[in-house]
Structures are given as structure tokens and as C-alpha cells.
């Protein structure tokens, strides 16, 4: 049955959905993270930068106003005053051709390129306490107040630069950690789910190779893979059951059909030998037909059960169990009477409607009545009852006072062809009860065999019809 199985596709980690999802997730995290950090950057470092530029501009405006009002001399004094002892503000004022007048706390004009508004970023040196020169970052605006007169106002931004550097560093660290953790997490998830998927895959392959006992561990977490494992297990149970059924049927056909077939064949051969005696021949042919009929009955029974168990539901309709029982008892009562058996029927006044297949249910009841009559001894009695249970189900009970079935054998008699050794000489195919069991299963009902001490009591519970098709229940008298 198993053809060449397709080669197990080599799982490329990149092709698994887990990894793809992880990557997508990473990209999203990266984008959001960058956006957030950019915002924080603008709000903090950007604000500080703008603040610096503003204060430079304000001071320049003040100084140029002073220059226009009071002339270069005052300006020079102002710059000189402000430069003194200053560490964070930088000034330089120079008059073309008069280097002696140059004032401010900056040694020389920055050589870095300026933008059209005169803004410039540059480095300057500051003597440290140990006599060494320290290079620091600065930002300044250079304004020409009149030809030959140029002023620079700046700020030491070494601190800001450091904040900025820290910021970038944190940014990189954070990004790196997110990426590393994301990747690690993703890989872990992918590996975990891959492992589970691979386990499902290899279990399925073992099934392909014929091992139907394969089951997957269910963790009970209820996630998709767990549910998949659950479905797989249920499926496997069903398949295993079906295959076992098939095997049983084949075995049973081999055992139980071979014998009557052999008898049929011998009978026909005997008829050929009896060609000279037409009465004997007629007799042999009649017996052969009877054998064939028995075979057909068995065969039909088998097919019917197989069909019932195939899982395809026939059309259901509301069936009044009480009425069905009344009618079948009416059919079987004369038969019971002939065997000197009394049949007692107890039916409720209210209809016990279940949703089912009338013919199949009727046939099941017929089989049960037939069995009860067959296995009871003369003088006994058969009790049949139908009642509605408080839970809305219908219960059918048939009890006899015959030999009963030993507890150890009760489950086995529901199997096909099982006839207890004590009843081998009675006619029948041994399919009666298994058909009943199959019909009950088809109706989602329950069947149980109980001790009637003495005798056998069979209890069948069938779900009641759906409320809309069920008449209102009143407590019965």
C-alpha cells in the first residue's frame, strides 16, 4: 500500500515559517526602536544643540547692538570682560590690520569651513592643569560687523559631544542586544517548533511504513502544534481501528465463510453423484440453496456492518422508539409464544422520539428479540422496556432469564462472528449483536450488557431527538 514516499524535504532553517516570522519581528522591532531613539535624540541632544545655537545668536545680537550704539571700543571691552575666566563660552574679536587689538579667549580663527550663516564646528585646544593641551569641540558663529571687523561667539560643546557619543553608543548597544536576543529567541523558537514538526513528520513516515501504533506526545498546552498532534493521534486511532476491523473481517471471512462454502460445494458434488435418484438430488440441491442463502445472509450482514462503520451517515429521521418496540414485539410475540416464552412490554405513555434510521433501528430490535427468544428456555420470560431518561435520552432495555453471558465474555460477543461455545449448535451468523453495536454507534448511543441474574439484560441508550422535533415532556403517570 505504501508507494515510494516523497523524500523528506530538507528543512532549511530560513524556509521555516518560525524563522521567517522571527525575522519579520526583528525588522519591526528595529524600525520601531530606531524611530523611538530618533525621537529621544531629537528631544534631548537636538534640543541641547538648538539651545546652544540660540544662546550664541542672542549673545551675538546683544554684542552687535552694543557695537552699533557705542562703537568698537566698547565692544572690545565687553568681549574682553566676557572672555575673562570663561571656560564654556568662546570669543574672538579682530580688527583687520591691527593685530594688537585682537581680543578674546580663543587663540586663532578656526580653519574649518563655515556655512553661509557663519556657523562653524571646530576643535580648539585648552591648556590642562598638567601643562598639556586638551583638544575640545566647539561651535561658533562668525559675524562680520563691518569690513575689517570680525567677531566670533562660540560655545564649548565637548560635554554635548560626549552626551551625543554616549547616546550613539547606547543606541548601538541597545540595537545590538535587540538583534542578538531576537535572533537567539527566534532561532530557539524555530528549533523548538521544527523539532516538534519533525517529530510529527517522522511519526507520519513511520505510519507510512506500516507502524500504525505511532502516537505523538501531547503536552496539553493547547497550542496549534499540540492540537495538530491531538488530531494526528485521533486520526491514527481511527485508522488503526479501521485497519484492525479490516483485518478481523478478512480473518473471519476466511474462518467462517470457508466452512459453509465447503459444505455448499460438497452438497453440489453429492447432487451430481445422486443423478440417478432425482428425489435425493432434489434434496441435495435444496440443501445447497439453503447453505447459499445462509452464506448470503452472513455476507450481507458483514457488508452492512462494514458500511455502518465506514463513517458515512444514512439519512436520519425522528423515530418513535416506543412505537417501534410495540410493532416489533407484535411481530415477534407469536414466535416467543411458540417457544413458550412470555413477553412483557413496558412503554411510557409519552413518545420517546430519537433521531435515527428507522430500518436500522428496527433491524437491531429484531436481532435483539430474536436472540432473546433463541437463548431462552421454554417457560421463561422476556422483558422489554422503553423509557425517556431525565437527561433527554431514550433508553431501551431488553432482559431475558436465559443463561446470560459471563462477564468476561460480554465485550467479546459484540465482535463479529463471536458465538459462545455453548451456542455453536444454534442457527445464526453470529453477526446479530455486532450489527446492533454498529447501529448504536452510528446513532452516537451506548450499549451495555448487564447481568439480569439470571439472564442477560441489554441496555441501549440513544440520544433524544433535537428539542425542536421533540414534543414537550410531561411527567408520566
Amino acid at each position: 500500500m505504501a508507494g515510494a514516499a516523497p523524500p523528506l524535504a530538507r528543512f532549511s532553517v530560513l524556509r521555516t515559517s518560525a524563522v521567517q516570522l522571527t525575522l519579520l519581528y526583528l525588522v519591526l522591532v528595529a524600525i520601531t526602536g530606531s524611530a523611538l531613539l530618533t525621537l529621544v535624540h531629537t528631544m534631548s541632544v537636538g534640543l541641547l544643540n538648538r539651545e546652544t545655537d540660540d544662546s550664541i545668536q542672542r549673545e551675538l545680537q546683544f554684542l552687535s547692538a552694543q557695537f552699533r550704539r557705542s562703537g568698537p571700543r566698547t565692544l572690545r571691552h565687553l568681549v574682553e570682560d566676557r572672555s575673562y575666566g570663561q571656560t564654556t563660552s568662546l570669543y574672538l574679536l579682530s580688527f583687520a590690520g591691527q593685530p594688537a587689538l585682537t581680543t578674546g579667549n580663543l587663540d586663532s580663527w578656526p580653519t574649518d569651513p563655515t556655512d553661509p550663516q557663519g556657523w562653524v564646528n571646530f576643535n580648539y585646544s585648552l591648556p590642562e592643569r598638567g601643562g598639556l593641551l586638551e583638544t575640545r569641540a566647539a561651535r561658533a558663529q562668525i559675524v562680520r560687523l563691518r569690513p575689517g571687523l570680525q567677531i566670533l561667539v562660540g560655545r564649548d560643546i565637548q560635554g554635548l559631544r560626549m552626551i551625543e557619543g554616549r547616546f550613539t553608543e547606547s543606541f548601538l548597544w541597545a540595537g545590538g542586544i535587540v538583534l542578538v536576543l531576537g535572533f537567539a529567541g527566534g532561532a530557539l523558537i524555530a528549533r523548538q517548533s521544527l523539532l516538534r514538526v519533525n517529530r510529527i513528520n517522522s511519526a507520519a513516515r513511520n505510519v507510512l511504513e506500516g507502524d500504525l501504533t505511532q502516537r505523538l506526545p501531547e503536552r496539553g498546552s493547547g497550542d496549534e502544534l499540540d492540537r495538530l498532534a491531538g488530531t494526528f493521534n485521533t486520526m491514527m486511532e481511527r485508522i488503526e481501528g479501521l485497519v484492525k476491523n479490516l483485518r478481523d473481517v478478512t480473518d473471519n471471512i476466511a474462518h467462517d465463510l470457508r466452512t459453509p462454502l465447503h459444505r455448499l460445494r460438497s452438497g453440489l458434488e453429492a447432487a451430481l453423484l445422486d443423478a440417478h435418484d432425482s428425489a435425493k438430488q432434489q434434496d441435495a440441491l435444496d440443501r445447497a440453496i439453503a447453505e447459499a442463502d445462509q452464506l448470503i445472509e452472513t455476507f450481507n450482514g458483514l457488508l452492512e456492518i462494514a458500511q455502518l462503520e465506514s463513517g458515512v451517515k444514512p439519512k436520519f429521521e425522528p423515530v418513535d422508539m416506543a412505537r417501534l418496540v410495540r410493532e416489533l414485539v407484535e411481530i415477534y410475540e407469536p414466535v416467543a409464544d411458540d417457544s413458550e416464552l412470555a413477553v412483557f412490554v413496558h412503554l411510557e405513555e409519552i413518545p420517546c422520539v430519537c433521531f435515527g434510521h428507522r430500518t436500522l433501528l428496527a433491524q437491531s430490535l429484531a436481532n435483539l428479540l430474536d436472540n432473546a427468544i433463541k437463548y431462552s428456555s421454554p417457560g421463561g420470560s422476556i422483558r422489554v422496556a422503553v423509557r425517556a431518561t431525565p437527561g433527554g435520552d431514550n433508553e431501551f432495555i431488553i432482559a431475558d432469564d436465559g443463561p446470560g453471558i459471563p462477564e468476561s465474555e460480554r465485550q467479546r460477543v459484540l465482535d463479529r462472528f463471536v458465538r459462545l461455545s455453548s451456542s455453536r449448535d444454534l442457527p445464526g451468523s453470529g453477526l446479530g449483536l455486532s450489527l446492533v453495536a454498529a447501529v448504536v454507534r452510528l446513532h452516537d448511543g451506548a450499549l451495555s450488557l448487564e447481568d439480569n441474574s439470571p439472564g442477560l439484560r441489554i441496555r441501549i441508550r440513544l440520544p433524544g431527538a433535537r428539542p425542536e422535533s421533540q414534543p414537550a415532556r410531561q411527567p408520566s403517570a
Partner: protein
Amino acid sequence: MHILVVEDDTVAAEFLMKGLSELGHVVDHAADGLTGLDRALDTRPDALIVDCMLPELDGLTMVRQLRAKEIDTPVLFLSALREVDHRVRGLEAGGDDYVVKPYAFAEVRARLDALVRRQASKVTASTLQLADLELDRLKRTVARAGKPIELQPREFRMLEFLLENAGQVVTRTMLLEKVWGYHFEPKTRVIDVHMSRLRAKIDRGFPEPLLHTIRGAGYSLRTSSPAR
């Protein structure tokens, strides 16, 4: 009677044709659904026996097309399919009755007779009579040689069915179907017990028995002179 057998299994077809010709019928055969449909339209047989599974055109479709042309020749379906709802589908397609393969010839014969008879006498008489046995459908009384006989309702229905088919064989399956309305194979004993009770009521004490057991087939209500 002219009967058309539409059956692709030649052995089964020959067996049916042999049996039916021996009963004095004129039997025609078609091996597939299309030929069967043509033959049925050309020759207008009195009854059709149609296998459900046929090459070219399946039996159900064939009969549906026949019915669409308003031809109401009685049709007896044969089917190897024992599906629970298959009978219903056969009857919905326009068949009149249904026999599951493998079948006993007696079953086919009895059902065919019942179909043709039903077709011939659509008017139901209010009283049915055979020899000195009388059944009044309206008064629901039975009498033999003028003496009233008490029957249970089911016994009455059994006798009515037997009388409707007087002279013909009715099988146990047919009885279970027509009298009780159940479609499954009865255990032989069940119907026999009912029949022996009926026989005790209508035949006991009368010189000529009317209810006969036909070995390997079923029962027949008839006067002693063999019908066929």
C-alpha cells in the same frame, strides 16, 4: 407478458431470461443502459427488470429518462449495492420495487407479478374473494363459506395482501415490507409463525386448504388446482 431485462452480467441475464421464459413470458435483453432505453422505447414491454449499475447509462438515470417520457411501465430494480438508502434512491428515480443481489429467482418473480398485477388493477375492489373465502375491505370482515372469521388487524392485512396477489407467490420479505412496513430480511421463522396462525384461522376445518407454503420461495393463496 413481454419483459425487458437490462443487465450487463450475461450469466445473471441468462438465468433471469431462462426462468422468465419458462413461466411463459417473452423476454428481451439489453446489456447496457442506452440500448435498454432504446429497446424500452421501441418495443414498449409490459415490465422492465433493470440492474442499477450498467455501462453507458446507469439504471437509475435510464429509468428517470423513461419516466420523463411519461412511460409508466413497471420497473423492478436489481442491485448489488446493499446501501441502506439505496432502495429509497431507486424508488425516487421511478422504480416500483427493488431486489438486492444475490437474489432468489422466486423473489424476482413474485415481485414482478405483484407489480404487473398492481399496474393492471389500479381500481381496488371493496371485496376480495378466492373460492369460498371472502374479505370485505370496508367492513373489515372475513368469512369462509359464509362463516365469519375473527382476525387480528395484522392478520387481516396479511390476508388482504395475499388475496390481492391470489394465485401468485409472495415472499417473506415482501410480507414484512407490505404488512409491517419494514425493509429488512426477516428471519424465516418470524413470518412462518404468523402464517401458521393465519392458516389455522382460515383453513382449519375446511376441506380445501387455500394458504400454501411454496418451498424455497414463500407463500401463495390459491385454490388447490395448481395455477402454474
